[in-house]
């Protein structure tokens, strides 16, 4: 039972990330590779304020989301002028800067969480408390799963309301022809800022749940490989509609579990899983460019 709850929590976390990334990639056509950085911003913020200052879950998550949405300006302002390969490169630059911050804001002789050593560098932060809302402790795995499910459903509802509103139609219009959208008097720069702020804040929320559940965070959560995994997930599942990213997230969770039944040695199981993801990407590029359940083809 615990095993299924564990999978459920991961499915919720990845669903939130996939839905947020879908807003940027599927509805704006901005293929960002910086998402793991924002995921880690949420995780580190939650870890630091809950360990050092004893904040509860909600204010800590709120702070993480606020920081992530301010930091999202780095991505959205590059989207003002660039798209396609150049935008991908700029988002990569943001990703690399964020990772360097998490990895290098470190001093061996200082206590972590101080100004000299904020993130504890490569050693990461251990002993992060479990979520705690107004004195209500989420200690057991079942209660954390419940919390993650509630948050994931809330994010799903918000995404659904956003993309089916006039604002969501504006996003699609901007993706398909930005010049026309601007010609109609829409402020596309401001819209890009809004979208990226929402998407990055949701990624930070997922990161906070992750940190609260695993109780440990280190810079490996912010690597480029993680970002690529996120992007793989939604490209395989499909973007541009509501169900595509969810399919991708479930597939990401289900794949290693299926591999468990095939007799693959543990030592190479992770490599085989990633290799299958690569294979999926190639197959999708050739046979179904909108992904398994998606609508939009990446340009």
């Amino acid at each position, binding site marked *: 039972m615990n095993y299924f709850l564990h999978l459920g929590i991961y499915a919720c976390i990845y669903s939130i990330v996939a839905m947020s990334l879908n807003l940027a990639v599927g509805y704006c056509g901005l*293929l960002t590779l910086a998402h793991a950085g924002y995921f880690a911003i949420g995780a580190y913020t939650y870890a630091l304020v809950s360990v050092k200052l004893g904040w509860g879950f909600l204010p800590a998550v709120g702070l993480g989301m606020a920081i992530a949405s301010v930091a999202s300006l780095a991505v959205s302002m*590059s989207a003002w*002028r*660039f798209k*396609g*390969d*150049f935008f*991908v*490169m*700029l988002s*990569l*630059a*943001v990703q*690399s*800067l964020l*990772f*360097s*911050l998490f*990895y*290098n804001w470190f001093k061996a002789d200082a206590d972590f969480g101080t100004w000299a050593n904020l993130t504890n560098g490569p050693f990461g932060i251990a002993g992060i408390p479990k979520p705690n809302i107004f004195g209500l402790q989420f200690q057991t795995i079942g209660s954390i799963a419940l919390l993650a499910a509630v948050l994931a459903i809330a994010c799903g509802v918000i995404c659904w309301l956003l993309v089916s509103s006039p604002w969501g139609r504006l996003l699609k219009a901007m993706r398909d022809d930005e010049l026309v959208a601007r010609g109609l008097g829409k402020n596309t720069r401001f819209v890009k800022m809004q979208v990226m702020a929402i998407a990055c804040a949701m990624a930070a929320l997922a990161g906070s749940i992750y940190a609260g559940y695993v109780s440990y965070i280190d810079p490996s959560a912010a690597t*480029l490989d993680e970002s*690529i995994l996120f992007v*793989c997930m939604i*490209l395989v599942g499909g973007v541009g509609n509501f169900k595509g990213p969810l399919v991708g997230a479930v597939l990401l969770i289900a794949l290693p579990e299926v591999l468990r039944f095939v007799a693959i040695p543990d030592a*190479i199981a992770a*490599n*085989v899983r*990633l*290799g299958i*993801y*690569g*294979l*999926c*990407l*190639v*197959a*999708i*590029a*050739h046979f179904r*460019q909108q992904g398994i359940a998606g609508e939009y*083809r*990446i*340009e």
Partner: protein
Amino acid sequence: MLQILANGIITGGIIAVMALAFTVVYLPTRIFYIALGGVYAIVPFLAWTGLQWGWAWYVAVAFALVIGVMLSLGCELLNHAWLEEKNASSGTHLVSSLGIYIIVVQAIAIIWGNETKVLRQGVDGVFNLAGVTLTQAQVGGAAIALLTIGSFYLWLQSTKLGLEFRALADNKNELALRGFSIQKLRLVAFGIAGLLSSIAALLVSWDVGFDPQGGLAALLLAVVASIIGGSQSFFGAVLGGILLGILRSQVVWFLSAQWSEAASFAILALFLVLRPQGLLGQKLRLESES
């Protein structure tokens, strides 16, 4: 000071070879060729295996280069040529290339394991030139990089194939209308890219060692170099590579090695905002930008 500059120019030369490899494909075909990182990653392992089998070093190197070129040709024949036939978007090319890169890297990790390996045995010889200390691997690497870049430009500027190649990069449709085979020239592009990236990979792994994950970082560095230099010409890549090498060695010296990635990308961001066409590029009209 001179020492840092010399180190920078030498690493820059090797980055330049890799940047050239990326540009050779990107300029004529507009394919963001991530799988080149896979070629870069697998070649040292092949050479290492050859050495383990007791081959002479030149046989092992030749073997690795041939497989590297064949892998790159395979990417074009089995993947990009098909996609091009279907008129796929550049994003689709990028995604499929990323997929191939992931497959290659995971295959390497499954076959050879994840550890860092080195090609060279024992300690390197050291040269002293006017107060600058250089290892044998550095001097050899610089010489080979220079030779590679030089012969590439000689080929590009003075042979008939080189002329056709420049025409392909300039205007592909016009060239096709005049009866030249685009498919053949694209194969040439991918072959050269494979060869150049294999050489760069062997030079780096001779000097500092290699692991399965290093390909993407090297490729991204090459892309940054080619954007800085100006991605419209074959010369820009070399200029950008050497500049980037010098910059990175300064950062390593004055800050720390961990910041060098961030510094390269910060420079990239600066260039994209202030001078998106790169050092050697000209500003294009909006409709001819891609």
